[in-house]
């Protein structure tokens, strides 16, 4: 070794001329210097060889089996807020604690220190997990940032966190059907969540541009307070009337905005294990029903709008109508000639059929299409059902459709159609905020002012004297129409299974809102009481209006608690 070093050490520069010559001669013959070069090359070769060998060795080896399972890329989504900025859906980051037991130095100490931060940690189980010597174990899912920070401060080697975006719905089931759902990858699969994705968010996420901070919250037209009241009332109604389902909607007549809409039974979007169940669908927009007598609003509106009928016209309802094998009878039969208001408030099937007859089959069909009752509704929610109607309309169809049997439509569309009768303008419903001016640009005039005035009068009259008495709310001038439809069981109309609805508008001097409620198969509240729409669906509407009118900005007025006044236009 010493000899080698000596050879490597350079000779001192101070030397006489002769030696230099001698050395030069030696170099020429390849003496000591050659040795040195070879030696240097060998050393470097050895070093690089070792490095290369090590690289190959490391390259061939399988990486140690550790670390959390492959990360799921959970995309950021914008918050969803209601019209007042209350959060309906938001992303929260949750951290989950994992450990790599192989790298844990002292399992005893680690467990003890973790237990200080997480008091509810199972001590024994955690200790066993940390001792197991496996590559990876979950210790605790979904910690708060505070807990995460405290654990980080402990500085235990061999533990780590995995953060994940999780969609959180503070309201739970309150607005479940409107807000919708996301899947495990944070992609919208139902309701407005799906609508937001379809508007380009999905593309944004795919290109990696969806940055959580730059996404503006999506504002809906929903008012969380009204939404809660509405859902609370229908949930209570299901209990009270022992029904199988109920639903309601509050719709702004002037703007077409849906202020609140719910259908129970529903689901908790934070834990949507049952969201796909058949009976939990959104009945208001995705359920098709024969709306029953609420359809008489359209029949009467159509008759008035045709110009062939005025409020003073009379129809003979003294005898049942026989057509083919069917007999059309009245539920509250008066057995005499009825005026148009009487047909409406006594909910006369015969009278409504006569009204439809006056207009004719083609006119009837055209009117319902004009109001959008039989079209597929255009709105943001993806869950929308297409109404059904007879392929070919015959006389019998027109007669039954006059009192709401023979066509199925969604309750939301019925509400939109009634809003058109109250204002004369058909405005597509929306779940996004819209001003009255914006609504006017897409509004279509569908009925005349005379029809509007007449329908307002009839609604008010029906709530004061007719079947909608129980929908009255002092101060808020409610008007409306009941609908008690018999359900089809095994192809026949059943006598004891009903589908009830009530459509109301308020305040009637200048209608602002439509409130429509439905209840499926209600039973009498107490034995001996009725189970028609007037005694359940109307009560739901009254409760919703009583509790929410002040939030909807409707001022109570007790000056109008008198006879309805018929306003007529020349």
């Amino acid at each position, binding site marked *: 070794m010493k000899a080698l070093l000596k050879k490597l050490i350079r000779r001192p520069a101070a030397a006489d001329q002769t030696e230099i010559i001698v050395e030069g001669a030696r170099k020429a013959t390849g003496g000591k210097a050659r040795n040195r070069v070879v030696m240097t090359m060998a050393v470097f070769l050895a070093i690089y060889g070792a490095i290369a060998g090590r690289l190959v060795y490391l390259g061939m080896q399988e990486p140690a089996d550790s670390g959390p399972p492959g990360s799921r890329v959970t995309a950021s989504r914008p918050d969803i807020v209601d019209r007042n900025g209350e959060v309906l859906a938001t992303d929260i980051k949750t951290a989950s604690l994992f450990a790599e037991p192989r790298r844990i130095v002292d399992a005893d100490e680690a467990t003890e220190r973790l237990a200080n931060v997480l008091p509810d940690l199972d001590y024994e189980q955690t200790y066993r997990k940390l001792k197991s010597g496996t590559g990876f174990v979950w210790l605790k899912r979904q910690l708060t940032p505070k807990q995460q920070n405290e654990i980080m401060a402990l500085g235990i080697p061999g533990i780590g966190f995995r953060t994940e975006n999780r969609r*959180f719905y503070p*309201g739970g089931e309150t607005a479940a059907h409107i807000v919708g759902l996301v899947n495990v990858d944070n992609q919208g699969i139902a309701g407005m969540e799906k609508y937001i994705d379809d508007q380009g968010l999905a593309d944004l996420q795919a290109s990696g541009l969806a940055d959580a901070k730059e996404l503006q919250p999506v504002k809906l037209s929903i008012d969380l307070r009204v939404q809660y009241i509405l859902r609370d009332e229908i949930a209570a109604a299901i209990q009270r009337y022992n029904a199988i389902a109920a639903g309601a909607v509050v719709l702004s007549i002037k703007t077409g905005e849906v202020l609140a809409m719910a259908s129970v039974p529903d689901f908790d979007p934070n834990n949507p294990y049952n969201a796909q169940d058949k009976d939990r669908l959104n009945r208001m927009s995705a359920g098709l029903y024969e709306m029953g007598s609420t359809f008489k609003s359209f029949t009467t509106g159509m008759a008035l709008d045709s110009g062939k009928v005025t409020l003073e016209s009379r129809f003979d309802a003294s005898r049942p109508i026989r057509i083919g094998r069917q007999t059309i009878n009245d539920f509250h039969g008066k057995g005499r000639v009825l005026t148009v208001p009487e047909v409406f408030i006594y909910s006369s099937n015969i009278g409504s059929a006569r009204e439809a007859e006056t207009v004719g089959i083609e006119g009837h069909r055209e009117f319902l299409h004009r109001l959008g009752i039989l079209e597929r509704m255009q709105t943001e929610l993806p869950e929308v059902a297409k109404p059904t109607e007879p392929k070919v309309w015959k006389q019998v169809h027109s007669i039954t459709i006059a009192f709401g049997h023979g066509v199925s439509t969604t309750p939301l569309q019925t509400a939109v159609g009634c809003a058109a009768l109250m204002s004369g303008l058909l405005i597509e419903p929306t779940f996004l905020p819209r001003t009255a001016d914006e609504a006017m640009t897409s509004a279509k005039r569908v009925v005349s002012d005379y029809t509007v005035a007449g329908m307002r009068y009839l609604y008010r009259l029906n709530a004061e004297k007719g079947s909608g008495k129980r929908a009255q709310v002092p*101060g808020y001038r409610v008007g409306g129409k009941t609908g008690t439809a018999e359900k089809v069981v095994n192809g026949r109309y059943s006598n004891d299974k009903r589908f009830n609805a009530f459509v109301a508008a308020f305040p009637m001097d200048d209608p602002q809102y439509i409130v429509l409620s439905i209840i499926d198969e209600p039973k009498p509240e107490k034995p001996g009481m009725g189970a028609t729409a007037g005694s359940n669906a109307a009560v739901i509407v009254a409760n919703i209006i009583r509790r929410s*009118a002040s939030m909807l900005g409707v001022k109570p007025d007790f000056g109008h608690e008198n006879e309805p006044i018929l306003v007529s236009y020349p």
Partner: protein
Amino acid sequence: MFRTSDMVLIAVMVSAAAFTYNTKHRAEDKLAEIRKIEAEIRYEQDSIDLLKADWSLLTQPSRLQKLTDIYEAELKLQPVEASQIGAIEDLPVKPVEIEDFSTQRLGGMADNAKDHTVTGAVLQ
């Protein structure tokens, strides 16, 4: 033999190396600091998100309803009736009360105090 210029150059080189090292070290320190602050900002932002979610959970109408039901008796809470809602304009104007001065001389106005203003018509 080292010449003076060598010495100077070596000194310059060493000090330049020292300066570079120092700058790099300080830059690394700053970067570490930035990373730490960024982590803190992220933590705060996440906390804000969580607190917002918490706040909306605490102000849910369903929760407030439960609370009012619980404290209804204790706080004597009652639902607002429509008749209790009104605007300022709905209030009747406060009736104006006019005192009857007619029984007193000069409406009683001259009796209150001595008039300090002296005019020529008043006898000295």
